């Protein structure tokens, strides 16, 4: 479609690639969590001290193993669980003092398939809209149901639906009152590929309309595909919050391990420019390179190795993934 010249011109700089829906970091966060902790009556400390800001219009993925405190954190923001200490504001409204204004903005899709049984899809979704104080709007409900491929089932009793359909109903309920912030608690747990695709399509559209989305997951790919920022929570603590792009740059690094025939005491002089490190007690050299760079430098390195007379018997490459980073973080704190 574009001539090469056009495409060069049209190619935006990386900074411009940020979608317009994301407000600059300088504006107030849409959710501000400060000093939040939760100890249940049983004595179990689900959250230690959480400080977290969610930016307006972003998709924030909260990653963490089971029992890390993801659901507790969401439940507190949504008003289902009471915090032990700390403060949360939603678009400037305190979730306790000004709970109506705060909650009106929020749609929640819970992790468990907790639906009514005997009601029709239409009734249960309309019920949610009324509960959130919005006037009747059949056109909106219809749109939500159509977007989620639920329109055909609108008169069906919920108990007759499959698990995937029930998940859609929960999403429809959350969207019925046109929330500005959407919480998706493990939205794709036990969900088939088609629903996953549909769901991400809906999420993309919501985001394009300026809705802030917070999702929890323990599937790394999900975070990789969708999120603008990624937070990792473990044992009730936020251990990392990072732009996904930054994390992905980390991920773009690969390591080449050269298994030598002999042993070396130090990195040979001739190879000084490659930033090599010694491994396996001097029987291996490790070269770190960027797969997304123009040149990886591998050809040059191998030629220089040969020139320096260093023989090797095997080559291995490894790529650290978000999963590795995640597992490392989680392990460190065990």
């Amino acid at each position, binding site marked *: 479609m574009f001539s090469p010249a056009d495409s060069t011109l049209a190619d935006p700089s990386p900074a411009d690639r940020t979608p317009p829906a994301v407000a600059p970091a300088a504006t107030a966060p849409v959710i501000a969590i400060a000093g939040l902790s939760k100890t*249940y*009556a049983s004595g179990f400390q689900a959250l230690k001290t959480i400080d977290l800001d969610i930016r307006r219009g972003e998709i924030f993925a909260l990653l963490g193993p089971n029992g890390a405190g993801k659901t507790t954190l969401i439940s507190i923001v*949504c*008003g*289902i*669980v*009471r915090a032990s200490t700390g403060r949360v504001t939603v678009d400037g409204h305190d979730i306790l003092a000004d*709970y*109506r*204004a*705060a*909650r*009106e903005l*929020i749609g*929640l899709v*819970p992790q*468990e398939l*907790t*639906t*009514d*049984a*005997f*009601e029709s899809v239409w*009734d249960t979704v309309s*019920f*949610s*809209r*009324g*509960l*959130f*104080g*919005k*006037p009747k709007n059949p056109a909106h409900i219809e749109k939500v149901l159509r977007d989620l491929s639920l329109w055909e089932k609108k008169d069906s009793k919920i108990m007759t639906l499959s698990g995937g359909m029930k998940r859609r109903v929960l999403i429809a*309920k959350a969207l019925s009152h046109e929330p500005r912030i959407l919480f998706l608690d493990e939205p794709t747990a036990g969900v088939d590929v088609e629903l996953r695709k549909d769901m991400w399509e809906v999420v993309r559209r919501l985001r394009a309309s300026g809705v802030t989305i917070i999702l929890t997951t323990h599937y790394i790919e999900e975070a990789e595909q969708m999120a603008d920022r990624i937070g990792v929570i473990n044992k009730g603590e936020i251990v990392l919050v990072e732009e996904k792009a930054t994390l992905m740059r980390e991920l773009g690094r690969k390591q080449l391990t050269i298994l030598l025939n002999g042993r070396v005491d130090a990195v040979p002089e001739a190879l000084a420019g490659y930033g090599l490190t010694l491994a396996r007690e001097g029987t291996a050299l490790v070269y770190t390179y960027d797969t997304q760079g123009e040149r990886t430098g591998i050809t040059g390195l191998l030629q220089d190795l040969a020139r320096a007379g260093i023989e090797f018997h095997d080559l291995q490459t490894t790529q650290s993934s978000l999963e590795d980073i995640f597992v490392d973080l989680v392990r460190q704190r065990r």
Partner: protein
Amino acid sequence: MISNLRAVRAIYVFEMSRTGRTLLQSIVSPVLSTSLYFVVFGAAIGSRISEIEGVPYGAFIVPGLIMLLLLTQSVANASFGIYFPRFTGTIYEILSAPVSYGEIVLGYVGAAATKSIVLGLIVLATAGLFVPLQIAHPVWMLVFLVLTAVTFSLLGFIIGIWADGFEKLQLVPLLVITPLTFLGGTFYSISVLPPAWQTVALFNPVVYLISGFRWAFFETADVHVGVSLGMTLVFLAACLATIAWIFRTGYRLKA
């Protein structure tokens, strides 16, 4: 405190439509069982009992039977109404919605009380088919009807929050409400009891409800109607205070 009327209406309509779906169980069965009481106690046994305080026995038991129905139905409906979402987990939506506690209670208790009142009036009309009825103070009759339905729906709401299983949900109506109603003068005037038991009976709150309600029909009462009204209001206030405490502490609702 009550500003999200759409939410109140949503809960109310939701609860009422539950009644609509289970019409047989909700309306037909209580009306049938109450009619059986009329046939057995009013017509069969009642024909051998002389008048009580100037009222034919068949008519005398009508206010008591309506109270029996009102109490059990209010408790059953309201307790189930709030217990079921707790059981299935759909309560998450109520808790995360921009609704006040007052609005939640108004929706659930309002629906449960409405249903009891409708049932009470249906049974009253049914009773009119079996026995000649007179209502001396229709307004007071309605006042007692509504107050009792609301009070016991509030009690049911409390039970529905307290219960952590279906067994407990049945326990209070079965072990407390029904005995208190039967011993509270549904089928007799407590003046027929030995003096000692009359004193014991005065500790039964249902005595005051039935007595006041019966007074509205026949102007005969075990205790003064003012006392009946006062005790009903005290019980109503106690239920409201308990519910306020539940929401303030998050008892069984919020961890």
